[in-house]
């Protein structure tokens, strides 16, 4: 995945997204999702490209992107693992899942595994409190995690 839009690989598909919304400012969130999907993270160049495509002020785009946890503005590994540590998940054992990740992949919150495969982020509630501990790998939701199950799940991601 290239880190930023370039002449060879520009940010694509925003025109399509724009069509679905009455105003370009309304298309900002989906556009940011799309940019993150294409580049893995939101570099300043990617944010600029979104701003230009939607004719929005760059500062406003960065402001929105920085507000939401899922729009990571730092470089990550190939897959971003986000584990919920809010009350329900924490009670159901998110802590032990985190410990397992550190032991197995050397992952600590905010860090990236040595092979560049995973990055770990601790996130607020992702809405799966009944099936905690829960995590998102990129955009896939995985629930009912245990120390064993998590390695099983993560091994599916290259």
């Amino acid at each position, binding site marked *: 995945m290239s880190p930023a839009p370039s002449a060879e690989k520009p940010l694509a598909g925003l025109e399509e997204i724009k069509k679905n919304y009455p105003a370009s400012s309304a298309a900002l969130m989906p556009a940011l999702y799309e940019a993150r999907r294409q580049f893995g993270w939101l570099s*300043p160049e990617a944010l600029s490209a979104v701003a230009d495509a939607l*004719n929005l*002020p*760059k*500062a406003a785009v*960065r*402001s929105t992107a*920085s*507000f939401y946890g899922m729009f990571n503005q730092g470089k990550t590994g190939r897959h971003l693992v986000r584990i919920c540590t809010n009350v329900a998940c924490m009670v159901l054992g998110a802590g032990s899942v985190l410990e397992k990740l550190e032991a197995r992949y050397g992952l600590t919150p905010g860090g990236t595994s040595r092979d560049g495969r995973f990055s770990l982020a601790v996130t607020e509630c992702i809405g799966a409190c009944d099936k905690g501990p829960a995590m998102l790998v990129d955009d896939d939701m995985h629930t009912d995690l245990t120390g064993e199950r998590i390695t099983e799940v993560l091994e599916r991601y290259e």
Partner: protein
Amino acid sequence: MMTLTINGRKVELEAPVTILEAAKRNGIDIPTLCHHPALELWGGCRMCLVEVEKMPRLQTACTVRVADGMAVRTETPRVVAARKAILEFLLINHPLECPTCDKAGICALQDLTVRYGAVAGRFEEGKRVFPEVVDDPVIVRNMKRCIMCTRCVRMCDGVQGASAIGVIEKGARSHIEPFSGGRYNCEYCGNCLAVCPVGAIMSKLHRYTYRPWQMEKTVKTICSFCGVGCTLRLEVRDESIKRVSAEFGDGVNNGLLCGRGRFGYEYVDSPERLKTPMIRRDGRLERATWDEALDYAAGRLLEIKKENGGGAIGGIAGGRATNEEIYLFQKLLRAGFGSNNIDSIARLGLLPAQKILEDIFGQGAVANLISGIPRSEAVLVVASDPTRTNPVMGLEVRAAARAGRKVIAIGHIDGLRRHRTRRLEAKTGPGQETMIMAGLLSELLKIKPLSGENPEFEEAIKAWGKTLPGPDEVEKATGVSALLISGTAADLKDVSTSSIIAGRELASSMDIRTNMMMLAALGYILNSRIFLISEHPNEQGLIEMGCSPEMLPGERPVDVRTFREKCEQAWGAGINPEAGLTLMEMIEQAGASIKALYVMGEDPAFGLPSRGRVKEALGRLDFLIVQDIFMTGTAAMADVVFPALAWSEKDGTYTNLEKRIQRLKKAVIKEGIEDWRILAEIGKRAGLPSRYRGVADIFREIAQVSPIHAGLGFESIEEGGVLWPYKGKPLSVSSSPSSAAGRFPGSGKAVSISPPPDRNVLKLVLDKPLLHSGTLSTHSDALMDLTGGPEARLCPETGGKLGIADGDAVKVSTGEGQISLRARLESGLPEDALFISNDFREAGAFELFGYQLEPESKTPVLTVQNLKVERL
């Protein structure tokens, strides 16, 4: 009508306002932090909480509107406790570095903390820390001090319309940053730092150099940069300006400023300022005493008058001189030396444009209030970018766009690109505006009925209008879609009030008369107030004070005897009845019929097109006097140089583009002689009696001589200025010497528009940088830090074609000359344009431009031949 009580006091109101506003009107102070009168309501800081009877919770006074019978109490123990708690929360993170914070003393948070005594910190947790950001040349950001009132963001978004900053991150980590995180790279209006209630965003110019209570005086005066005439407050310590600010509610600008006004004041303290008079002896300029210089100057001028007659002497005045100085200047030349050869840079556009419009509609046709722009239903911006040349007027256009008014930009208007405007812009830009305007006008004439108010004018435009090129023709010539033009016209069909803003580009054209006629016709059909962009603070004064070869003070034609006699009586000297030479004619005649030139506050060797030829011409003069604050190119060629005083060092009046006369006040005492005194002293030596004790006396004389200023007293010009038509009598249309046919240029004939320039050829365009205004502002360090130096702007596509990358050094040459400068690629620029400004001494566009005189108005029209751009 509604009645409520605030703190037990009965308050009556006509219309519902917020509790805060109601309290304020009755002298009750409710503290606020995030509220600001110029900004959108927010209600975020909770400082203004008040108790309202029958409402269970405390209410924010800034957002809740009053209702009949409401009982509000603003300082109950409950309210005070709440405010104290809020302050305590703010102080969890706000550092206690008041002793070294520049805001201390004028800090809202500090004042409130003292008022409510929330001095106790009960939290032991560490404060959030953000490093101070000093990367930017003029703005320092210290985000640990930020209280997240978001005033700056609301200012930048909602008023300035630059949207350069935003709230980054969330919760306790939230802070304000520009996109880059470091430098702002914005319009640098500095309005964000003006509204910051704490010391989070501050100016770097006066960083750590003073404390607010050390100021010796604060003087309200008028800005010296453009024709808007913003009211400034100069804060002075030790005869040096420490800070420039503006108070909301003051003046035309209502507290807003642009980068030039706020950060550009440093030039007055430049070490390069001229200090003593100088006389050329043996080819070198040497210091002289005032008496020597004055005697020499007057003596030589009298000699030349004796040998060659008064017509051999010419005068050029600058747009930064005060009305009083300009008046004395033209009086000196007219009455002292018998010459009508007086002109100014207003000739480059404002004067001829205004003259034609005034011929059509009568004097005062362009005297309209800037504050009316956002209130008109439609705003047309033609050819010139007000957000660059007259930034504060540009803000009103942006306000109109924000308020959903129909804003139409004809031509390439950079500053409105992000705003809701309808853009009639050819991809290939410059020189197409006339055509587009013609298309719009022809369509409007078809669909919008005329009001019948001015039958004479309607008669004139009816037949003439039929010959205007239609939208299809315009599409063919410019590439702007005919549909867009007719759609815009249809959109304007029901408009009953509008504003039109036009600039020098329309006037500096061989089509000036057609352009102005179209402007007038558009204005008439759309019931518009017309605004002419003015680049100098007193360009209007140059016109009104008679600094033109054909007009006496009060814009009275010099060839009408009654007007002449009035002046002759007051001045005790005869006036030449024939109009003199205009600006460029004087230069052309230098060495031939013009032997001596007196230049006041202007730099013809730099500021006029075809610089090489102008310099040569100045060299041919027998005698050249320059009165300026810096050693300009012209001053370096002069025989006598008088050091002038800068705008902050003298009293006087400026007339802005709305025709509003405002007082300039002396803020700083500087060694030297006021400019009017220099003129009066030379006048005395030339036999003109002078009994002036100060500028007030000069103004009294102006009021005697100029019919439009009649009855106006200097002291009676109060804050906010005096508005047109002042107290005097405007020149009526009927007494204008021109016949009806002459008054309406081109009427009775088919519309003549010169063919638009070839779209495939690169064109040189005179750029108007936002942060500079002539070479004057290049003496301000802060503005130089922001801009760096001369630039040639072009769009990346064109850059690619020419093999030029961003930042490359390029050589630009034309038949006139050549300059080297840096190239800057900017997307969104027209494809066939190369923008170069004439503001930097090392590389100015007028080195490249030639000119051609428009035969009737003698406006120099910029021309370019053999434009070549090469990478160095």
